[in-house]
């Protein structure tokens, strides 16, 4: 009784704050928690029933883990897992270094107008869809009309069939991904840098610290919590590959699958003829489950080192 009263009092006292988180809470309930009920589909052979969606779920046959088998049944399982994990690991590490580096560079540019110009320029690709980016890349790499081959021909080199030679693609994928995403991430870090108390730098300057020392001893430590949180969140999505990047940019070229097939493209290619909802749900559940385990583990590791930087 007493606890209940305290709870009501708590609510009353924080009503303004609670009201503010209400929209996000509702969003999560409707779009994140309620759909979790749908994960039971991954253990069923989904068949449509006349009486609507819930009836369909209830009447569909239980099949245990059958829907997950296609993810592990062939040697492709190794290729797609390796590609997904390695690419994402590279994206996380290189993306972090570049984004923080660029944010620091941008914050140090004295000409603020010019800094804004660079920032916008880097930000722009983030808004392009992968289909458009795919055509940009194609205009460079097309065999007979691409810019790269044209330039190579001007220097007397032989043209390269970019879309059928896997050895170039790990690099191309990474460069294209970074080009598209780096602007957005660096703006996040730039905002954090702007929020650092200027008096810290003034004090450092008085003590005779040079630029490099200021960056190493003030900027980077101040950015550390943000870097940890964003990295932890990225690790949670390490099993999700960017479909557009791995499907549109290599133009779905079969000869490149050894280096471009990832979990998401594998699922798409495998299920587009059968359209088994149970199997695609199974793939989604598998990805989220691995992501969940990884986030919990890495958060635990972070907490061992520094409690304040951990997510929870």
């Amino acid at each position, binding site marked *: 009784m007493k606890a209940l009263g305290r709870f009501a009092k708590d609510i009353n006292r924080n009503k303004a704050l609670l009201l503010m988180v209400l929209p996000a809470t509702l969003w999560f309930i409707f779009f994140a928690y309620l759909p979790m009920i749908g994960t039971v589909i991954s253990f069923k052979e989904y068949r449509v029933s006349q009486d609507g969606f819930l009836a369909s779920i209830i009447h569909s046959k239980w099949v245990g883990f059958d829907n997950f088998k296609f993810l592990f049944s062939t040697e492709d399982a190794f290729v797609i897992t390796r590609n997904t994990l390695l690419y994402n690991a590279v994206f996380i590490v290189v993306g972090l270094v570049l984004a923080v580096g660029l944010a620091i560079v941008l914050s140090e540019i004295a000409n603020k107008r010019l800094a804004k110009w660079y920032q916008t320029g880097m930000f722009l690709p983030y808004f392009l869809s992968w289909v458009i980016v795919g055509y940009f890349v194609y205009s460079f790499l097309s065999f007979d009309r691409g810019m790269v081959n044209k330039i190579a021909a001007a220097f007397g080199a032989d043209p390269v069939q970019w879309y059928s030679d896997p050895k170039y693609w790990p690099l191309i994928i990474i460069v294209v991904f970074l080009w598209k995403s780096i602007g957005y991430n660096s703006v996040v870090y730039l905002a954090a840098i702007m929020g650092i108390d200027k008096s810290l730098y003034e004090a450092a300057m008085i003590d005779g610290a040079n630029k490099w020392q200021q960056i190493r001893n003030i900027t980077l430590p101040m950015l550390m919590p943000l870097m940890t949180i964003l990295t932890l969140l990225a690790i949670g999505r390490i099993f999700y590959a960017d479909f557009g990047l791995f499907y549109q940019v290599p133009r*779905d070229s079969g000869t490149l699958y050894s280096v471009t097939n990832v979990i998401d493209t594998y699922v798409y290619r495998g299920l587009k003829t059968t359209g088994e909802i149970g199997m695609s749900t199974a793939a989604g559940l598998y990805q989220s489950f691995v992501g969940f385990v990884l986030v919990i583990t890495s958060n635990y590791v972070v907490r061992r080192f520094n409690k304040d930087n951990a997510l929870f």
Partner: protein
Amino acid sequence: MSNNRKKMTLTLASVLAASLALSACGSSNGNASGGSASPSASGGGSPAKGESVELNWYTIGTPQKDVDKVMQEVSKYTKDKIGVTVKMTMIDWGDYNQKMQVLTASGTPMDIMFTASWAFDYVQNARKGAFKPIDDLLKKEGAGIVSTLDPAFLEGSKVDGHNYGIPAYKELPSQEVWRFNKQILDADKLDISNIRSLESLEPLLKAVKEKNPDVMPFQVDKNYGPYVPYDYLIEKFPLAVKLDDNSYKVVNVLETPEMKQALQTMHKYYTAGYIPTEAATTESSSDAMVTGKWFVDKATTQPFADNLWSTSAGYPIVSTPLSDALIYNWSVMGSMQAISANSKHPEKAMEFLNLLNTDPVLRNMVDSGIEGTHYKKIDDTHMENLPESKNYDMPTFSLGNVMLTYLNPGDPENKWDEFKKYNAAGKPAVLLGFNFDMSKVSNEIAAINNAKEAYWAPLMTGTVDPDKYLPKAIDKLKAAGLDKVMAEAQAQLDAWKAANNK
């Protein structure tokens, strides 16, 4: 587009799951209360006089601006005739398959929907329970369809002995042709009268390559597959039965001598520079069609197809057959309208489909829009599009019986008679009527599709050397479980053969 695909494979199903679960609850409540409010007004589902039921019609094609306007006119007409009004929802070509899968899986209220062998797969979705079986409806409300439509259509579109959709009355057999750009044919004084096989093209390709360096001799894109005398169990899936094989043996088409020879020829053409370098990753040949810088390609024909192609390309195109005209499962099921399993008014939906396939007024209104606004008639059988038709440009073949539609200017008077003759001359292909049920082997199919996609387009377009890559592809397919699928297919085919006394 990428977004849609991603959503389809992973999240959309589960995200929509929740929202539609909610809306499903909502709608069933709505029905319950609606039913109790007026218990006697509408007995047995048929509306009383003056009332009408609204049919939700989902069909394929780029959404048109004037759809609602035209459907209002259509509704006026159908309300008087059979007491229904129509609401049409168009879903664009590329999205149709995925959106319809989600819409049906989630139980969205629908009455009529487009389905085909190539979009929102008819056979699979019939088996998944998306459509209502219409055998009984066809006897009563659909009697007009049965008497109009060539019986081969309804017979050929049966799934496990039942009809689930009404095929559009159009060309029935499918025949592959070589299409030639007549300008180049004339300029180089080439003769196509002896052309038939892939190999017979060679001297022409060579001549074109020498005389017209800026022209692509053989226009090929990633959808290309050489013609081999086999009937595929699933489209673009390596299992097939040879056309004249009375023992119905399922084979891996990549292991057949015909396919091997065709791929070797393709590779020879590719290395000779007759085929575009990036054929294996080119989505479509539409660019080449626009520029006219091509000499030959492969297409599927119908009566007067040369006229059609020449009109749309803006320069003369001629063709010559490379295969016989045969009736395949996929040519019968090329365009169908089905009644949704969750339709509240299946009888009314069938009445509407019956009218659509038998009544020229309704059929042409749905096809060309409002007379005087979107088109005008020039004589009894011909019509001409007006400028407004750009707001209502519908894919004719997807909306039922095409034999009822008005002719375009320049179409011969006997066009539909020729279609009927062409249909009558078609012979059934070996697998006509057999539909492979892949639900038992869906895990293997998923794995095989991945293995197949890695090799299919590069091999078919001649981009890679079949001597090297064909064995690799066969090994990969075997590793992914092709043998198991083949055994399952053979078992189903044998059972079908026994049941049908083949």
